[in-house]
C-alpha cells in the first residue's frame, strides 16, 4: 500500500499525490487527511494532483468527498493541477465535481486558498459581531 504524506506548512495542509493510487491507498489517504484536519486545526487544505494522469470514478469521488468533508469540518479545500485530459475524461464519465474549487497550479492554488480562508474569517468575525450586538441590544 502507498502512503501519501500530509504536510502542514504554516496554516495549511498540503497533499501531493505523486504515485498511482489504488483504491485502498486512496481511502487511507482520505482518512489521514481528515484526521490531520482535526488534529492540526489547519485553516485550509490543498491537494496537488499535477502528477496524476488517470482519475476514474473512484478516485474522482474520493477527491470530491475529501473536499466536501473538509468543508464540513471547517477548512476550505482547493484541488490544483488537474490535467486537461483528466478533466475532459471526468466530464465525459459523468462525475460532477460540484463544490470542489480548482486552480491551475500550486502557486495560484495557494493564493486562492489564502483568499478563501481570509473571506471565511471575515465572515466569522461579522457573525460574531452581530451576535454580540444582538446580545447587547436585548440586554
Amino acid at each position, binding site marked *: 500500500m502507498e502512503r501519501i504524506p500530509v504536510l502542514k506548512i504554516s496554516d495549511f495542509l498540503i497533499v501531493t499525490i505523486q504515485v*498511482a*493510487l*489504488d*483504491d*485502498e*491507498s486512496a481511502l487511507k489517504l482520505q482518512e489521514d487527511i481528515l484526521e490531520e484536519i482535526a488534529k492540526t486545526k489547519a485553516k485550509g487544505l490543498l491537494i496537488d494532483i499535477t502528477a496524476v*494522469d*488517470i*482519475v*476514474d*470514478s*473512484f478516485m474522482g*469521488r474520493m477527491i470530491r468527498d475529501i473536499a466536501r468533508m473538509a468543508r464540513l469540518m471547517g477548512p476550505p479545500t482547493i484541488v490544483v493541477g488537474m*490535467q*486537461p*485530459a*483528466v478533466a*475532459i*475524461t471526468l466530464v*465525459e*464519465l*459523468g*462525475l460532477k465535481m460540484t463544490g470542489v474549487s480548482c486552480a491551475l497550479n500550486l502557486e495560484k492554488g495557494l493564493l486562492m486558498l489564502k483568499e478563501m480562508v481570509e473571506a471565511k474569517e471575515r465572515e466569522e468575525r461579522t457573525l460574531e459581531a452581530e451576535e454580540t450586538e444582538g446580545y447587547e441590544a436585548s440586554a
Partner: protein
Amino acid sequence: MRQVLEEVAVRNNTDIVTARNSVRTYAKQMGFGLVDQSRIATAVSELARNIVVYAKSGKVEIAKLNEGPKKGIEVVCEDNGPGIPDIEQAMSEGFTTGGSLGMGMPGTKKLVDEMNVWSEAGKGTRVTIRKFLK
C-alpha cells in the same frame, strides 16, 4: 489482424492500477493522444474494478487492431463471476447493486468508440471495448 499484446490477471486493487497503466502505455505507443489515453485507461479502470468487486477475479486482455482503415486498441475484460442478469439495466446510469454510483458501465460507454457486453448468469461476464485511431 488482431494481435494480443498483454494479459493482466485481475484479483485485487493493485491489479486495477497495473491494468490501467498497461493499457495507457500501449495506447500511447500506438499513437493515441493524451485525452484518448486517459479515456481508454479510465474505462479499463472502471471495468477492472467491476471484476474485483463483483466477480472477485478475472483478466484484462489488451490487443492491437489493424483491420484495414480501422486501427486501434481493443481491451477485453473477462471473468467467471456471477454474471449480469439484466445488461440493459447495468448499462443505465445510476444502477448499482454495490451501493456505489452506478457510473462505471454507462461512463465507460461514453469514453470508448465501441462497447460489447456478454454475460450469462452463473458463467461470467465479458466486456469488450474498442477505440480507433482517427
